[in-house]
C-alpha cells in the first residue's frame, strides 16, 4: 500500500500540493462571500459601530480644558495643589489672556459648563469675568491676580484651581469615576458625599429588576408556548395572533393601558373595592413603583420569550413524549426528564433577548416606575438629552455595555452559547 514516493504532501492533478490549492479555492470563495456582505458590513460599521464608538469615546475625552485655556494649563503645571497657597501671578495672567480669547470666541461659557460638573459656581464666575475681561488690555494692565479677585472672590478659591489642574489633561477618568459615585479629590480618587450617591445603586437595581422581569417572562411564557406548540395548527395560529397583537400595538398605548388598570382609581382597584376585598380608603398602590415597572415590562417583553420558546418546542418530536410514557414514565417525569431538557435552548434564547432588552429600557420605567422603579437608562437619557453632560452619559452607557458583555460571557461559560436556539 505505502510507497516511498508518497511520503511527501498529497498533490493535486496539476502537480501543486493539494492543501494549498484547496486553501486557494476556499479563499476565493470567502472573498466572494465577503464581497456579497460588504454593503451590509459597511452600512453597519458606518451607521452603528462608528457612532457608538464615538459616543463611548466621549466618556474619557476632555480636551476642552486644554484647548480653551492652553496658557493657564501650562502655567498651572508647576503649582502644587497641596501647598495650600494660591497659584502665582503668572497663572492669573495666563488665565486673563486665555479668558479674553475664549470670550471673543464665545467658548468660555461652554468650558464653564464643563467645569461646573465638577465644582458648582464656575458657570456664573466665568460669565461675570467674561464681561469684565473684554474691557481689559491683556497682557499690559496687570497685575491680574488683583484684578480677577476684584471681579469675584471665587478666583481665590483653592478648589477652583485644583479642579482646573486636575482636569487639564486631554483624557480623564473623571466621568467613569462619577458614574461609580466617586470623584477625583485632592488626595486622588475618593467616594462622593453620601447625599450624592446614586449610580451604583441604580446599576444594582437595573440588574435586579431585569432579572425579575426575565424570570416572570419565563414563568408566564413557558406554559403559553407549550400550549401553542402542542395544539393543532389551526387553533395555535389563532392563539398566536393573540400573542402578536400586543406586539404590533404602540409601546406607549400599552404602557398607558397599564396605568388605567393599575392606578388607585383604576379598573383593578375598583373591582377589588366593589367585591369587598379591599377597603375604599386603602386602595392598593400598584403603579408608580417597582411593581408597576415589573408588570408593564413583563407584559411588553413577553412575546420575545414566547416566540423563541415556541419555535424550539415545535421541533421537539411528539414521539419522544409518547415513547417515554409507553416506557412507564409518569406525566411529570416525561415532562421533566424528556420534554423540558429539549426546550432549554429556547429558554436560553428568550432569556438573553428579554434580559438585554430590559436592561436598556427607559420609556416604560419613566412612565410607570415612580421613584423606585426607574432604571439606569433613565439617567443616561437624562444626561444625553436634558442635562447635556454627554461625558457622564457616555460613561454610564459604557459601563452598562461592559456589564452586559460580561454577563454574556458568564452565560456562555455556564450554559454555553451553542445551547441557545431560536428554533
Amino acid at each position, binding site marked *: 500500500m505505502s510507497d516511498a514516493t508518497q511520503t511527501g504532501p498529497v498533490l493535486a492533478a496539476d502537480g501543486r500540493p493539494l492543501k494549498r490549492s484547496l486553501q486557494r479555492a476556499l479563499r476565493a470563495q470567502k472573498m466572494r462571500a465577503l464581497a456579497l456582505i460588504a454593503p451590509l458590513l459597511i452600512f453597519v460599521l458606518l451607521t452603528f459601530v462608528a457612532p457608538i464608538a464615538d459616543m463611548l469615546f466621549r466618556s474619557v475625552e476632555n480636551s476642552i480644558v486644554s484647548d480653551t485655556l492652553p496658557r493657564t494649563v501650562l502655567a498651572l503645571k508647576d503649582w502644587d495643589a497641596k501647598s495650600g497657597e494660591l497659584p502665582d501671578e503668572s497663572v492669573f495672567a495666563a488665565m486673563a489672556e486665555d479668558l479674553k480669547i475664549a470670550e471673543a*470666541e*464665545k*467658548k468660555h*461659557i*461652554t468650558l464653564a*459648563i464643563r467645569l*461646573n*460638573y465638577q465644582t*458648582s*459656581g*464656575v*458657570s*456664573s464666575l466665568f*460669565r461675570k469675568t467674561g464681561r469684565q475681561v473684554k474691557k481689559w488690555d491683556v497682557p499690559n494692565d496687570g497685575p491680574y491676580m488683583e484684578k480677577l479677585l476684584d471681579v469675584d472672590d471665587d478666583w481665590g478659591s483653592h478648589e477652583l484651581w485644583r479642579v482646573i489642574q486636575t482636569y487639564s489633561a486631554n483624557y480623564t477618568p473623571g466621568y467613569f469615576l462619577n458614574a461609580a459615585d466617586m470623584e477625583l479629590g485632592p488626595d486622588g480618587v475618593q467616594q462622593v458625599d453620601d*447625599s*450624592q*450617591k*446614586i449610580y451604583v*445603586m*441604580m446599576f444594582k437595581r437595573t440588574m435586579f429588576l431585569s432579572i425579575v422581569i426575565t424570570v416572570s417572562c419565563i414563568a408566564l411564557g413557558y406554559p403559553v408556548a407549550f400550549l401553542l406548540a402542542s395544539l393543532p395548527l389551526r387553533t395555535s395560529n389563532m392563539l398566536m395572533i393573540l400573542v402578536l397583537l400586543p406586539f404590533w400595538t404602540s409601546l406607549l398605548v400599552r404602557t398607558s393601558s397599564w396605568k388605567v388598570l393599575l*392606578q*388607585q*382609581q*383604576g379598573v383593578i382597584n375598583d373591582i377589588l373595592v366593589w367585591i369587598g376585598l379591599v377597603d375604599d380608603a386603602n386602595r392598593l398602590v400598584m403603579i*408608580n413603583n417597582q411593581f408597576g415597572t415589573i408588570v408593564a415590562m413583563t407584559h411588553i417583553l413577553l412575546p420575545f420569550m414566547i416566540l423563541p420558546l415556541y419555535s424550539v418546542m415545535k421541533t421537539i418530536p411528539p414521539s419522544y413524549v409518547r415513547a417515554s410514557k409507553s416506557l412507564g414514565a409518569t406525566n411529570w417525569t416525561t415532562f421533566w426528564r424528556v420534554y423540558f431538557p429539549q426546550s432549554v435552548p429556547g429558554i436560553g434564547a428568550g432569556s438573553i433577548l428579554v434580559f438585554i432588552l430590559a436592561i436598556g429600557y427607559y420609556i416604560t420605567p*419613566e*412612565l410607570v416606575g*415612580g*421613584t*423606585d422603579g426607574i432604571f439606569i437608562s433613565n*439617567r443616561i437619557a437624562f444626561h*444625553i*438629552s*436634558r*442635562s*447635556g*453632560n454627554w461625558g457622564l452619559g457616555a460613561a454610564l452607557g459604557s459601563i452598562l455595555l461592559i456589564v452586559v458583555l460580561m454577563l454574556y460571557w458568564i452565560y456562555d461559560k455556564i450554559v454555553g452559547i451553542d445551547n441557545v436556539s431560536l428554533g
Partner: protein
Amino acid sequence: MKLKTLMLSGGALAALAVSAYAAGHGNMAGSMTIVSWGGAYQKSQINAYSAPYQAMNDGLEVIWDESSNEAVAKMRAMYEAGNVTWDLVDVEGPDATRLCDEGLAMEIDFETMLAPGDDGSTPADDFGDSLINDCFIPQIVFSTTFGYRTDVEAWGGNAPDDLCDVFDLEAFPGKRALEKRPKKNIEWALLCDGVAKDDLYDVLDGEGGVERALAKLDTIKDQVVWWSAGAETPQLLADGEVVMGSTYNGRLFSVIEEQKQPVAMLWDYQVFDFDGWIIPKDLPDDRLARVLDFVKYATDTQRLADQAKYISYGPARASSQPLVSTHADLGIEMAPHMPTNPANAQRYLVNNLEWWADNQDDVETKFQAWLAQ
C-alpha cells in the same frame, strides 16, 4: 417606472417655476422647519402665526418638528455633524440661555429684527424683562402652578388658597403630583419652611440649604406622585389619582375650561417662565432671510395677542396685553386666565437662572439620590 420619472421631473419643473416666480416677487417660498412642543401649544402657534403667514406667502411650506424638549442636545449634535436642518426653534428661557452661551443660537438685533410695538414702543421696551439674553425672542409668559380637585370630601368644604396647603397633609389629605425635577420644588419647599421670598437663594447658597428644602419635601414624600411630562398632572387630576398637583397653567386651563373637570387653580406663588424662539447660528442666507421675515411677523403685537385666543399663556409684549380677547372656540374672556393677570399674580416667583446654572448638576444629583432613597 417611466410614469414615476415623468411625475418626478414634472414636480421638479413645477417647483422650479414656483421658485422662479417667488424669487422675482420677493416671496418667501420654500420650506422652513420650525421646532416646537407639539400638542395644544403648537396648534396655537399654527393658528396664530404660521397659518396667516402662509396665507400671505404662497408656496411656503412649514414643517413642524416636535423636538423642543430635547432641543439643546439635538442642536449640539447637528452642529457637530455640520448639518443644521432646523430654521427656528421654540425653547424655554433657560435652554435659550444655554444655546446662546454655547454659541449655537444667533444673536438678535432686537431693534431691527423685531417689529416695534403697536403703541409705538421700541421692541426692547415692549418686551422688557423677557429679553433674558441676546439670542432669545420671547413669545409667552407661562407659569408652573397648582391645580386642585374641588370635590374632595375629606377637606370638609375647604379649598386650598395658600401654596403651603400643598405641604399640609392634615387639612388637605390626599396625593399630590410634583415634577420629578428639583427646580421649583425646592423653592416652594423653602417658602413653606418659613423662608422669605427674597432670601430664597441666599438660604440655598448657604450650608445645608438644599438639604433643608429636601427635608421639607420629605414631609409629603410618601404622598407624592412624580411627573415628568406636563400632560400627566391634568390626567391624574381628572382620574382622581391626585387631589392637587403642579403643572403648566395652560394645561390646567384646558382641564378646567375645555374638559369641564371639577378642578380649580391655585395661583399662589406660581413660578413664571418665558418661552420663545431662537434661530440657529450660521444659517445660509436664503433660509435666514425667510426665518427673519417670519419671526418679525410672528412676534408682532397682534400675533402675540392672537395666540392667547387658543391657549391661556400671556403674551410677552406689554403692548399685546390690552388686545387679548376671547377664546376662539369657547368664547370666554381670556384675560382672567392669564398668569400675568394682577389677580392671579399677587404672589409669584421667578427662578434665579444664574443660581440654577451654577448649581443644577449638584442639586439634580442630590434630588435624584433623595428620590431614590
